Structure formats: structure tokens, C-alpha cells
């Protein structure tokens, strides 16, 4: 498979803290990767650099054979890098449909009716049709998560970076979100998923990358990750891991 995203010797420090320490990773098109690690291991920093919110101190990022370091987040969104944040990011004073169309129409590449048609189909897929004229501020936490999914799909992403999408979500809704993620991945979208919910990671992902203090300590299948002593130590501490 062709490498869609290549992260080459990426380093990022905040003051004296090394958030990423020469990280090297390559992701192929169509992969579904779990990115795990204890708090402060550098997962979100990596996503922030790939999506253009941070600039790396050193290293390169290549997306579809093009260097993208220093590219602004909105341009990356337009070339197919979709992203969610730990805290749901939607415009709460716009309606559900307006949220969709702000995404779809801001580059003027399609007409309003084309964008509306696409938005309607996505909302239907995500069971949000009846809420299309509702202000986002009136939506529940779960509905906001789905709206965030919907507005990401409006940008027709080829690479999806999901940061803790299952936080505070009802188990039934979580199942529905799993189905969406699997469906999009089956359609060819590469997905990098950050979650502290190990059950979700191991159920969804075929490859799991573990970060600890800015270093990759494991890159393998879920089974390999579960069995890795370094991963156990990173999560539980050396003493508990050897017990």
C-alpha cells in the first residue's frame, strides 16, 4: 500500500519538556491506526502538528508525497485532513445545517444546492436529519459528537484524525460511532484514532502505535501491544508491570 502520511524525525519541545522526540512513522492509505499512550506522551501534540496547529521544531511531514509542515490548518482541511478535538468543536450559535454548509461552502467549490444535497445525505447517515434546523447549542453531548462527525465528512477527508471521540458517550451511541468509523475506513479513508478507551482501540484498530514521553515504544498489532512489556510499564509503572 502507498504511504499516505510520513512523519520523519519529528521533534517538538515546550520549554524544557520534550513532547515529541524524533518520532518516525508512516501510515498507508486505508489504515485504521490506534494512537495510545499515557497522559503527556505526545499523542495530541503529534495530531496538532499533522493538522497544522503546531509547528515542529525539527523534522518533516509528508502527506500524499507533498511536504505539509507549516501549512495552515484550513488548507490541510481542504486537501483532505479532517480532524476532531477532545472537546467537541462545532459552532453552537449556528444550526446543524448551517454548521454543515459553513464547511461545505467556504471554498466556493460547489453550489449551495450541491452542498445542501451532500449535507442532507450525511445528516441522514448520522441520524441527524430531524435536527437539521436546530441550533447546535440545543443538542445533547452525544448529538454534538455526531454533528462533529458530520461536519468532518462534509470536507470529504482522505485522512481522519480523531482525538478521543468516545469521551462521555453512551455505549449505544459508541457502537453507532464504531460502525461509522468502520464504514468510512472501508470506503478508503485513513483513520488515526486517539483514545484512552483501550476496548475501543483494540476492537477497531489493526495497528496500534504507543507513545511514551515523546518516543514510540511499540508499533504493532493489538495483540503485540497487549503483550508488550514496555507498554505495560508506561501505563502501570515498572513495579506493577513486573508484578
Amino acid at each position: 500500500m502507498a504511504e499516505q502520511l510520513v512523519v520523519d524525525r519529528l521533534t517538538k519541545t515546550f520549554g524544557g519538556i520534550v513532547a515529541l522526540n524524533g518520532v518516525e512513522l508512516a501510515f498507508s492509505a486505508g489504515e485504521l491506526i490506534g494512537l495510545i499512550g499515557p497522559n503527556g506522551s505526545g499523542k495530541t501534540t503529534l495530531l496538532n502538528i499533522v493538522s497544522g496547529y503546531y509547528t515542529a521544531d525539527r523534522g518533516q511531514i509528508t502527506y500524499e508525497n507533498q511536504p505539509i509542515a507549516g501549512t495552515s490548518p484550513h488548507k490541510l482541511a481542504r486537501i483532505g485532513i479532517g480532524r476532531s478535538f477532545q472537546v467537541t468543536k462545532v459552532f453552537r450559535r449556528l444550526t446543524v445545517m448551517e454548521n454543515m454548509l459553513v464547511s461545505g461552502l467556504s471554498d466556493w467549490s460547489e453550489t449551495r444546492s450541491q452542498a445542501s444535497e451532500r449535507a442532507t445525505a450525511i445528516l441522514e447517515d448520522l441520524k441527524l436529519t430531524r435536527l437539521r434546523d436546530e441550533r447546535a447549542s440545543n443538542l445533547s453531548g452525544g448529538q454534538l459528537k455526531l454533528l462533529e462527525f458530520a461536519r468532518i465528512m462534509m470536507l470529504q477527508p482522505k485522512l481522519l484524525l480523531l482525538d478521543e471521540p468516545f469521551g462521555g458517550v453512551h455505549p449505544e451511541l459508541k457502537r453507532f460511532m464504531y460502525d461509522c468509523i468502520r464504514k468510512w475506513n472501508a470506503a478508503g479513508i485513513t483513520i488515526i484514532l486517539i483514545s484512552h478507551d483501550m476496548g475501543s482501540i483494540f476492537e477497531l484498530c489493526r495497528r496500534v502505535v504507543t507513545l511514551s514521553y515523546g518516543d514510540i515504544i511499540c508499533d504493532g498489532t493489538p495483540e503485540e501491544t497487549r503483550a508488550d512489556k514496555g507498554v505495560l510499564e508506561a501505563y502501570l509503572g515498572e513495579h506493577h508491570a513486573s508484578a
Partner: protein
Amino acid sequence: MSLLAISEQAINGLIIGSFYALTALGLAVIFGVLRIVNFAHGELYMLGGYAYYLAIASLGIPPLAAILIAVAALFVIGAAIEGLLIRPIHTGKIDRPDEYAIMITFALSVFLLNLANSVFGPWPQRPEPLMRGRVEIGELIISGDRLAAASAAIVMIAIVVFALRYTWAGKAVRAVSQDRQAAEIYGISVQRAGLIAFGTGAALAGLAGALIGPVFNVVPIMGVVPVIKAYIIVVLGGLGSIPGAIIGAIILGQVESFATILIPDPSRALAYKDAYGLIVLVAVLLLRPQGLFGTKDRRA
């Protein structure tokens, strides 16, 4: 007080309120999108006055076309200021962006004020008004220049509010004002939205200056008092709130108009005119610190 006197004061308040609304709306749009208080807003107002005056006096352009030229010129000036001076605040190139925003707009204010003094001199200029004469509605008499200027202000406010609410560029600007980070992941260019916002804010201030010029003269310091009132209005209405800026301006216009006639000595009443807004502001903030339309965690 007779019904006629009440009507006169209400209309005077509405006219003055419409000018205040124009200036405050520009300030609110800039604050909403760029998160900065533009201390040079009064000088953009003044430049609008001079652009209108020059278009008529030097180029011989009719007043209505001169208004449009002043608005276009101030949009371009505003966009240039945003691109050159304001943008670094949001690109991470400035160590202390909040302090930089205060210093750069304050410095720009001083620079433009002194530039106008050097180029045009401190003397007042009175450009031709949009409309001469007076309009009589029953016993009510309204001067034509004020009525035309207020009507133009109301039309412009309606256009801006409509554009923000119903056009996609306007929705994108509103989106950025709600959450810059979210706007970027939606694929919206926050830089373009910032440019549009500062350009629009400057154009609104410039229009207010151009409309007021024939009524109260064009002088380099003409923007100082109106912009203080605009600050009062945006805080009164809720920082960054568009409806708040408009309603706040109407309230201030009415308070100034009616408070003036409630004090028996007319000269004293007029001398206190600029203090009434501050009294209203203090009263509102005591009861509702976030302003009339603000929320405690307001982002726009």
C-alpha cells in the same frame, strides 16, 4: 412635556443612535473576529470624513458617490492595516499578542491623528451634505442633512446585519467569531475572515465619519468622542455582540437625547451630555456585568 417635544427628542435620539450604532457595529465586528479592541477606530472614522470631503472638494464627485468612495477607501485601508499590523497577532510571531494589539492600535491612532493634523491642518472643513433643507412631518421639523445621514446609516446597518446572517461569507465570519480553532478545522480561512472583518469595521467607521462630516464638520479630532461612545456601547451591549451593539447604540442615543431636556438649565444639560452614557454603563454593569446581550463565557 408635550407629545411634540417627546417625539422630537425620540427622533433626535434615533438619529444620533444610528451614527453611534454604525461606529459601534464596526468595533464589535472587529472585536468578535479578531479578539482585539481597535484603539484606532476613531481615526478610521476621521479618515472616512476626510475621504468624503476630498472626494467632493477635490474631485467634484456628488455626495452619494463620495459616500461610496469613502466606504470603499476605508475598507481597503482597514484590510491593509489588518494584513500589515494585526495579522501577526494570530500567527504566533508575537510573544505578547494581547499587549501588542493594544500598543499597535494605540500607536496607529496617534500616528493617524498627527498625520491628519499635518496634512489637513487642525481647521474644520464642512463638506456638502447628502441632502439640504429640512423635512416637515406635521409639526415635526427635521434637518435634511441629519435625516439623510441617519437613513444611510440605517440602510448600511441593515445590509451588514443581513450579510452576516444570510450570506455564506457572513456565516464564515460569524463562525470565526465563535471559535477560531473550530473555524480552521472546518476549512475556513481565518486570515481571510480577519481581513474581511477589519475591512468591514473600518468601512463602517469611515461611513459614520463621512455621514457626520457635513453635520458637525470634519476635523482631525472628530473621532475621539464618538469612539469613546462606541466603546461604551459595545461593553453595554456585550463585547462582540452585533445585536448588543445596535441596541446599546439606540439606548445611548435615547438616554442622551432625553436626559438633556430633563435638566432645566440647557447649557448645563448639554455640558453633561457625554456623562449620561457612562452613568447608564455603570448601572447596567452593576446589574449585568457581561452587558445586555453578552454571556459570561462569551466568545463572540
